[in-house]
């Protein structure tokens, strides 16, 4: 057991006893980088004083006399007697590839020999600071022992951080440097506006933004009790901290460090006059996943709403088995290959137009044929028609009733023990034989029904010519009549359940209680509400939030979100929806503009086709989500077995393995410890992805979109036209919907089917993700609620209680005054 290790004797293999930060500093020192010398107090010393790691803050320890002596001896051996040092945390997990703990634990500057022991204890105790506790709870990680670095304090005149990859443009190959005067503490604490330098892969400075650096942390402090933040002298505030030569030197050093660790790094550096010191190098944990093969990809917007949270690794792995190579998952989200699309379309489209088309922003108004691509394009279209045209034609004439044959077919497959999970995926989702009944290709039917978007584009073109007097904003009102479909039935059933609950005192009390699930379970099984709820679950129990992800529980497994929706509807649901009367008014307006001749009949035919495809899309969705549920149930059986045999630690861990890993764990080829380590890393990576917004493109420049006209305007895509002024309510999850009041504007990061029961009582909807075809758009159009989707910063810019003026038709929302 060693309590002290000199930094120059440490390498990456010591990470378990000296922590990630110290291990990397040691590795840098051994590779010849200029790292301030010092030593590390290992985690053995920590464990000597805290043998049991608690999640709650323990009292300060009584220090072992031998440890204090060893510490003093080490100080004398490494530093001058009157030298001041930096005492820095290096928790065992810190600066690993998973999470950074950046700023969570303490660092102390200007520490002399006399104050060293107390600084070390303070550093240890920072493991239980409120911030560190919250951070660990947030990332769901256990308390780990802490090592402490005692290091020569660089008399830094300038310091900063350097990213070997720009977290916002990881594929561009630029490095980003942030620099300020004095020690780096002011910069990393966010107290100073630093200079920002971008250096391209060829070592050329391409961007230099000079910050107004008002504060600095001096390298020397005469009185340790005084404030360590000094004002920057006026003549230095707006002067560049680094010369071009120094920026280029930093670029080279950072590249070398990236090569040493074989991953993107975030380097803390300092200049002591002319000499460059490296203070820290940790993996960049904020860089989002990028495509491994450098392909140009576009986020597939029609299904992006289903990937509001990235899929867990097992879902990605299983979906990859049925995914055409045209598509790819990056960071758990679905993208399609931009260059392949560009090659196969026989049209001359700019990147902007093609991205707009994929994003379902707009159909190009006057596309020009590409002579070069025409033969290939026609060939592909012809081939597509010959091979899939028959299915396309069959899906244009299906009746809702014929889809019901899907249920017994799926049930037989689900209970067939000879089919493993990937085979079940392929049989149910991967496409059937051409002569199989259409209901066996439910997902393909759902995708093919998306053609209504093109038909609406065609109808708009016809109406512009034939009925210039008709207001195209009323077109959605004309399209949405009283056609029955599963999604409408589901909303109606929830409304009926809420009406039933409101009628009985006991159900009202149960739903308003703190734990509605327990209260409802206590009700008499013969209670009419319980009976109706049972019927609802038997019909819609396979649905739930994040249906595409096999890790997400369905309503049958967890009825809490459903009960909250019923309660919400009970409280606010007595709104009268006059959508049908609006439909009649809009239809009359269209008929007046068109007359009753051939044009009206053509338009009627198109409208009927559009309505058919909309209902086909919604109805097939009801069924194909049963496939996802069936696969989840099969996976849960496997998970139960692995939990029972001790090969998995926690419920839900299975979904963070790949299918081959699941098989290896089942057969014993992968031991429980390796599984646990893999699961932990992937859970952290998944949580990080879930918290970052999915990049819309990789390796292509985004089209320049209209910038907001001013700071109080946010732009998006119109999914349901109309204007509305009202109070915003930011809701991050559908089970928080009880906060919504009738007539408010829902502001949400995404919506999926579980949100739709909220819609009828809303005044408007603003969604961060989504497209015209997204669920929010479809349902909002049905209820004629103005809806704006793809509003990037809506969650961060809009506050609950703020008054908004939503101009959905024109694609923007105005942020007005705050009223709460």
């Amino acid at each position, binding site marked *: 057991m060693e309590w002290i290790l000199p930094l120059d004797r440490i390498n990456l293999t010591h990470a378990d006893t000296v922590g990630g930060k110290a291990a990397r500093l040691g590795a840098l020192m051994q590779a010849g980088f200029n790292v301030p010398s010092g030593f590390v107090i290992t985690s053995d010393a920590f464990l000597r004083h805290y043998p049991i790691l608690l999640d709650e803050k323990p009292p300060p320890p009584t220090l072992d006399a031998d440890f204090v002596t060893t510490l003093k001896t080490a100080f004398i051996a490494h530093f001058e007697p009157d030298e001041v040092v930096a005492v820095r945390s290096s928790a065992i997990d810190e600066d690993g590839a998973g999470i950074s703990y950046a700023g969570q634990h303490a660092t102390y500057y200007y520490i002399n020999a006399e104050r060293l022991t107390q600084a070390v204890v303070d550093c240890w105790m920072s493991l239980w600071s409120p911030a560190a506790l919250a951070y660990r709870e947030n990332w769901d990680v256990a308390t780990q022992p802490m090592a402490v670095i005692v290091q020569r304090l660089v008399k830094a005149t300038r310091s900063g951080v350097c990213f070997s990859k720009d977290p916002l443009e990881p594929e561009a190959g630029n490095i980003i440097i942030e620099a300020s005067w004095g020690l780096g503490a002011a910069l990393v604490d966010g107290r100073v506006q630093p200079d920002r330098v971008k250096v391209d892969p060829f070592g050329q400075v391409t961007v230099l933004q000079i910050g107004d650096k008002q504060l600095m942390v001096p390298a020397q402090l005469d009185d340790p009790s005084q404030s360590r933040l000094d004002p920057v002298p006026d003549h230095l505030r707006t002067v560049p901290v680094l010369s071009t030569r120094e920026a280029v030197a930093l670029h080279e050093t950072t590249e070398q460090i990236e090569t040493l660790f074989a991953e993107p790094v975030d380097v803390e550096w300092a200049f002591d006059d002319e000499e460059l010191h490296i203070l820290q190098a940790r993996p960049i944990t904020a860089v989002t996943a990028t495509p491994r093969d450098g392909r140009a990809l576009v986020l597939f917007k029609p299904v992006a709403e289903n990937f509001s949270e990235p899929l867990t690794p097992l879902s990605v792995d299983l979906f990859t088995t049925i995914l055409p190579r045209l598509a790819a998952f990056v960071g758990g989200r679905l993208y399609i290959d931009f260059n392949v699309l560009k090659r196969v379309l026989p049209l001359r489209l700019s990147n902007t137009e093609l991205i707009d088309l994929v994003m379902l922003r707009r159909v190009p108004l006057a596309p020009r044929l590409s002579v070069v691509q025409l033969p290939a394009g026609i060939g592909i279209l012809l081939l597509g028609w*010959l091979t899939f045209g028959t299915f396309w034609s069959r899906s244009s004439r299906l009746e809702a009733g014929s889809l019901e044959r899907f249920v017994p077919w799926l049930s037989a497959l689900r209970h067939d023990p000879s089919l493993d999970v990937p085979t079940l995926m392929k049989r149910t989702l991967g496409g059937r034989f051409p002569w199989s009944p259409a209901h066996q290709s439910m997902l393909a039917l759902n995708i093919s029904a998306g053609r209504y978007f093109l038909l609406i584009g065609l109808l708009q073109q016809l109406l512009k010519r034939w009925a210039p007097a008709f207001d195209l904003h009323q077109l959605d009102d004309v399209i949405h009549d009283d056609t029955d479909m599963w999604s409408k039935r589901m909303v109606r059933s929830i409304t009926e359940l809420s009406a039933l609950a409101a009628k009985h005192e006991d159900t009202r009390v149960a739903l308003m209680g703190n734990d509605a699930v327990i209260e409802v379970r206590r009700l008499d099984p013969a209670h009419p509400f319980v009976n109706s709820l049972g019927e609802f679950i038997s019909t819609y129990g396979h649905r739930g939030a994040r249906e595409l992800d096999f890790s997400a529980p369905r309503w049958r497994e967890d009825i809490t979100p459903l009960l909250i929706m019923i309660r919400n509807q009970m409280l606010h649901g007595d709104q009268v929806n006059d959508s049908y009367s609006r439909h009649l008014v809009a239809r009359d307006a269209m008929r007046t503009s068109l007359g009753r001749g051939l044009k009206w009949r053509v338009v009627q035919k198109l409208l009927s086709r559009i309505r058919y495809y909309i209902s086909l899309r919604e109805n097939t969705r009801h069924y194909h989500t049963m496939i996802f549920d069936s696969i989840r149930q099969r996976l849960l059986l496997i998970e139960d077995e692995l939990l029972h045999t001790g090969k998995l630690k926690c419920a839900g861990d299975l979904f963070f393995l790949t299918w081959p890993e699941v098989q290896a764990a089942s057969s014993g080829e992968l031991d429980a410890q390796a599984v646990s380590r893999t699961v932990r890393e992937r859970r952290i990576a998944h949580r990080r992805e879930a918290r970052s917004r999915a990049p819309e493109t990789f390796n292509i420049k985004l089209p320049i979109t209209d910038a907001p006209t001013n700071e109080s305007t946010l732009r998006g895509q119109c999914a349901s036209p109309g204007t509305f002024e009202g109070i915003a309510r930011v809701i991050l999850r559908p089970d928080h919907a009880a906060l919504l009041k009738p007539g408010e504007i829902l502001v949400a990061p995404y919506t999926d089917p579980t949100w739709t029961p909220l819609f009828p009582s809303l005044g408007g909807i603003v969604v961060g993700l989504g497209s015209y075809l997204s669920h929010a758009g479809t349902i909002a159009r049905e209820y004629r609620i103005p809806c704006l989707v793809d509003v990037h910063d809506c969650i961060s810019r809009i506050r609950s209680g703020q008054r908004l003026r939503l101009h959905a038709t024109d694609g923007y929302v105005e942020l007005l005054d705050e009223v709460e």
Partner: protein
Amino acid sequence: MTVLVYLLALPLASELTASLLGLRDGGRTPWRLVRVLLVALVLLSLIRWLGDMATYPIGAALATIVSMQIIGYLVWRFFVIGIRQP
């Protein structure tokens, strides 16, 4: 003329195949049956009217559609979505 008949017969053969397969899909069966009969009637009339000049291209069109369905399925199954067995 043979090529013209083939090009005309191709969409009719596709429609015939779709309607025949549509019978398996269920729903509106009588109407689908009528469609099958109507398309078959058109094709048979062409054969009766043009003789061998229509028989071969119509046969080829039907074979094209059926074989392309199968080839398309196999290409999709084994090359587009891959044959990876995880």
